[in-house]
């Protein structure tokens, strides 16, 4: 197997420019989608745990819908199907937007991830011991106060690992956007490979982006957990064999 | 004096920075029932687990029936001579009580199934739960589970039985049924036993030797009368005061 490594090439134009664009696109696509997904996810998550059967049904339907269809298929639906089904005025505005694929990806990834976040929120609230709710109410707090001062802080801490994991998942899922034309880092790597035949260098850049971000986010999460830790609450026991 | 069946010689054990055992030495003779008590973190359970090799100590040695743990090549075989009963019973939830008891005789001692089952029935009757043999542990009360766990350990016909706080996880009304089984084991069968417990009533009536441990050391080791009436160390006195006069 003969392969001539040429790492220096990555630092020359046009490759270096592409790489920077690709990394930036990956980051802002992930971050914008994350913000929307989190807001939506919290809303739907709350629906799932309220006492109203109607809201719970809406929440469940939402989650099941977006969870059981592959993200790639969802992207295609947002790209090809939804614009056609909308009123003409809206779809013609949409089609004349710059970066339609980008915003399609944002919408697609946001809705998909929001359903997963809603599930995490539901798990976290269900994991809170029943006694906490009872203790809070018995001291005269209103339901709203109970949620604000007791339940939400508790659930937030339980959720930290799962939410971090969802962010990393969104970050990895931005790669799917390449199928609808968004040039994020994986697409960039493919492009570099196609132009230079130096696949190892190209894909290493992409992999490094993901791995470095993963490590960074996990370190941040560990810091967050330690900083906001409630002693004895989340048992980080090391039960190994 | 015959050789003690369990000889703990200057054993020390450290977990990371924490010293769990600090040059502990102890001899246990055949037929003796030794009760070990002390505050939590004093190393009592750790000491017990050193005897059957579940914990690896860094210095010193433990000899069981003449075999040194340090030089032992076949720990599983050695453990056939040492029965252990745990605080949380640790029955295998996915097997019936009978299967729980016959597993090790069949797999470790290589006994034929019929023989293992005969043994199991014998000990099930001994501890008084023969009618629960076909049930799963989840269907038994705590006291029944612990008695099943004792039968499981006895089925290997060990020379020494180790009890690690056997009644600490039980509802108050079930503690006595387990203690009676243990008393009969000590008095009628003459089993050599090491018991870590806070049940002082049991200790006074059944034990031959009393040991008090604190911070990884044996502070006091004496006969039952001396221990309760004239303890030598101040620390022992403090502990006994707190534990005997609870309110």
């Amino acid at each position: 197997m003969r392969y001539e490594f040429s790492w220096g090439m990555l630092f020359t134009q046009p490759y270096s420019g592409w790489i920077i664009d690709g990394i930036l696109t990956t980051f802002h696509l992930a971050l914008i989608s994350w913000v929307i997904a989190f807001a939506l996810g919290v809303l739907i998550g709350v629906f799932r745990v309220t006492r109203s059967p109607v809201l719970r049904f809406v929440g469940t339907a939402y989650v099941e819908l977006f969870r059981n269809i592959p993200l790639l298929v969802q992207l295609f639906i947002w790209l090809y199907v939804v614009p056609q089904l909308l009123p003409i005025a809206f779809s013609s505005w949409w089609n004349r937007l710059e970066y339609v694929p980008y915003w399609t990806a944002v919408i697609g990834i946001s809705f998909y991830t929001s359903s997963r976040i809603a599930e995490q929120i539901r798990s976290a609230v269900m994991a809170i011991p029943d006694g906490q709710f009872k203790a809070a109410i018995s001291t005269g707090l209103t339901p709203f106060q109970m949620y604000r001062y007791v339940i939400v802080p508790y659930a937030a801490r339980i959720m930290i690992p799962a939410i971090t994991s969802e962010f990393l998942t969104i970050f990895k899922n931005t790669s799917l956007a390449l199928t609808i034309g968004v040039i994020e880092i994986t697409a960039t790597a493919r492009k570099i490979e196609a132009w230079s035949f130096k696949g190892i260098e190209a894909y290493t850049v992409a992999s490094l982006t993901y791995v470095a971000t993963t490590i960074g986010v996990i370190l941040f999460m560990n810091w967050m957990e330690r900083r906001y830790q409630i002693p004895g609450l989340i048992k980080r026991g090391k039960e190994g064999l | 004096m015959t050789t003690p069946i369990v000889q703990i010689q200057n054993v020390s054990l450290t977990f990371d920075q924490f010293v769990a055992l600090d040059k502990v030495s102890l001899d246990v003779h055949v037929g003796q029932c030794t009760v070990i008590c002390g505050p939590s973190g004093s190393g009592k359970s750790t000491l017990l687990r050193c005897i059957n090799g579940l914990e690896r100590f860094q210095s010193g040695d433990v000899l069981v029936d003449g075999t040194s743990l340090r030089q032992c090549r076949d720990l599983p075989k050695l453990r056939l001579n040492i029965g252990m009963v745990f605080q949380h019973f640790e029955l295998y939830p996915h097997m019936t009580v009978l299967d729980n008891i016959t597993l090790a005789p069949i797999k470790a001692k290589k006994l034929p199934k019929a023989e293992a089952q005969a043994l199991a029935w014998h000990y099930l009757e001994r501890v008084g739960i023969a009618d629960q043999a076909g049930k799963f542990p989840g269907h038994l009360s705590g006291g029944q589970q612990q008695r099943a766990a004792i039968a499981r350990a006895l089925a290997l016909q060990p020379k020494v039985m180790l009890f690690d706080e056997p009644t600490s996880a039980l509802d108050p009304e079930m503690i006595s049924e387990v203690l009676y089984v243990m008393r009969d084991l000590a008095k009628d069968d003459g089993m050599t036993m090491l018991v870590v417990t806070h049940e002082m009533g049991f200790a006074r009536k059944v034990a031959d030797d009393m040991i008090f441990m604190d911070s990884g050391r044996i502070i006091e080791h004496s006969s039952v009368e001396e221990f309760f009436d004239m303890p030598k160390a101040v620390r022992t006195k403090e502990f006994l005061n707190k534990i005997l006069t609870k309110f």
Partner: protein
Amino acid sequence: MDWNVIVVSLPLLWKGLLTSLNLTAVSIAFSFPLGCLVAMGRLSHRPWLSNTCASFVHVFRSNPLILILFWFYFLMPMIIGSAINDLTSLIVTFVIFFSAYFAEIVRSGIQSVGTRQMQAGLSSGLTHVQTMRHIIMPQAIRAMLPALTTQCIIVFQGTTVAYIIGYNELLHSASMIAERTVRPIELYLTVAVIYFVVCYSGSLLARRFEKRTYS
């Protein structure tokens, strides 16, 4: 909208679905055992083994599936010396990629049983292997079933990635038909429904497993 297109295309879509299911099944068949091995390695007392397996898991869980697919699609012909067909590179990618996820599920299943059951087994004279086989694994597998089922559904959803290299699974077949007949709405909605039905049924199965505990 002209739903007749769907009726006419059903045979092709059915073939695509079978291809996707086949791809899923083969991937799981190799990926799960590999994952078990990696999980065992991760739990080993030998640092070189547990660290290697831990790194394996971290690397493949940090990278997106598409990128791993590109890696293997590019690297394999180079290493082997000749061109590789699409299916082989897909299967190799899926098997290795998903084994990291299976490894995590197996590992946490085993750890959820706890050290005390292990101690109980060892203290009665069983060897480490015997304890794993008779005591730990039966309990671990029961604990793992819901997560394993969910992971299988994820593998099935992952097969859509094969679209990118032009392999003819369900999504790709549908897009070919959509292009040919210029009827993307009908095709993609149908495909979405098919995926939904399969994945939702799978999730119901996973929920059944979750309910079965020791009474």
